[in-house]
């Protein structure tokens, strides 16, 4: 099979376009994890929690472990009026787990960081 110059250019252009599409949709490999524990633990907790813009599925058996892109995420809880209130920031690092416990009996729920990095109990930024 012989490829003319025009065909070769066409092929190259097609590969570049497709390559661009693949790169655009290719997921980030830089991921970490967020472990959210709820207290009190229940078979299913409908706490109305959001990680940035995404609403979390009901949490089963008092905990969920979620794969997330690295960076800082905002954990928010739905208030009684249906609005969202930020309860803490969660720093996700590459291939590490950041653990946060959410006390769901309080309104709005309260975050308890496993580590804050600063040691200050008023610090609402959870780190791994």
């Amino acid at each position, binding site marked *: 099979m012989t490829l003319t110059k025009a065909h070769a250019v066409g092929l190259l252009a097609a590969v570049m376009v497709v390559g661009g599409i693949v790169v655009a949709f290719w*997921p980030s*490999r830089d991921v970490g994890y967020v472990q959210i524990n709820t207290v009190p633990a229940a078979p299913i907790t409908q706490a109305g929690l959001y990680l940035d813009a995404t609403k979390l599925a009901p949490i089963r058996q008092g905990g969920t472990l979620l794969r997330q892109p690295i960076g800082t995420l905002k954990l928010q809880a739905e208030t009684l009026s249906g609005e969202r209130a930020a309860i803490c920031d969660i720093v996700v690092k590459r291939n590490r787990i950041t653990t946060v416990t959410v006390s769901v009996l309080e309104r709005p729920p309260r975050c308890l960081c496993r580590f804050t990095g600063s040691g200050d109990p008023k610090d609402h930024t959870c780190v791994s």
Partner: protein
Amino acid sequence: MTSSAAVSRAKNRLLIGAILTAALTLAGQVYAEDNTGPGTGAANGNGVGLNGLSSSVISRAPASPVEEFSKQLEDFQKSVPDLNKEIQDSAAAIDSATDIDKARAAIDQLRGQVSTLLAAVSDNGPVSQLGFKALAHIRAKLKILAQEQRFKLEERQFLVDQWQRLQAETENAAKELGDARSQFAGLLQTLQSNEDFIDELVELRQAEKAIEVIKNLTRNIRDASARLNRLIGSIKPPGA
């Protein structure tokens, strides 16, 4: 001559078409991989992928959610011994390292390997997501069968029994995956806390103590890796 040129053109078009199709399919799979969450999304819409563990199931023709879960689980089980071997090799590399920097680099690599496994079984990972979908499908089937009028009573009962058996097997597999998730998470946490401790020791110029921590860590990794291998190998995919 003209006809040979036409054949050549047609072949080239076919080749370009095949490349385009393959690449677009790949792009579609990657996109689909991150959109397989349950109704509420489970915080999985953040464009995070999984280094290829889930792609095989997505590329096949649509099967029932239970079949998909079973297949994905089997694929995951098949990938575990190889990844576990890599973990054991990394543990050996850490153990033999006399240089702390090399040992830390090996721990970092090991965290990557454990993270790959954890990604598959995290709550918003592909295997867990398919498990949720499979269970939702079974519950919907049982609900429909309860009102089904097309079949004789014994036929209906037979179908209900079969779906209930699948439900029990799927719930069991999901529970065992949950146990594996906890153990992977525990292993990753052990690695990160040990790494942090080693960093602190290095800062304090306590190299000997750091080496001792590294040696202890490798023993723990080997034990955890062997336990996980057994645990994941023993999970029975539903309907298998």
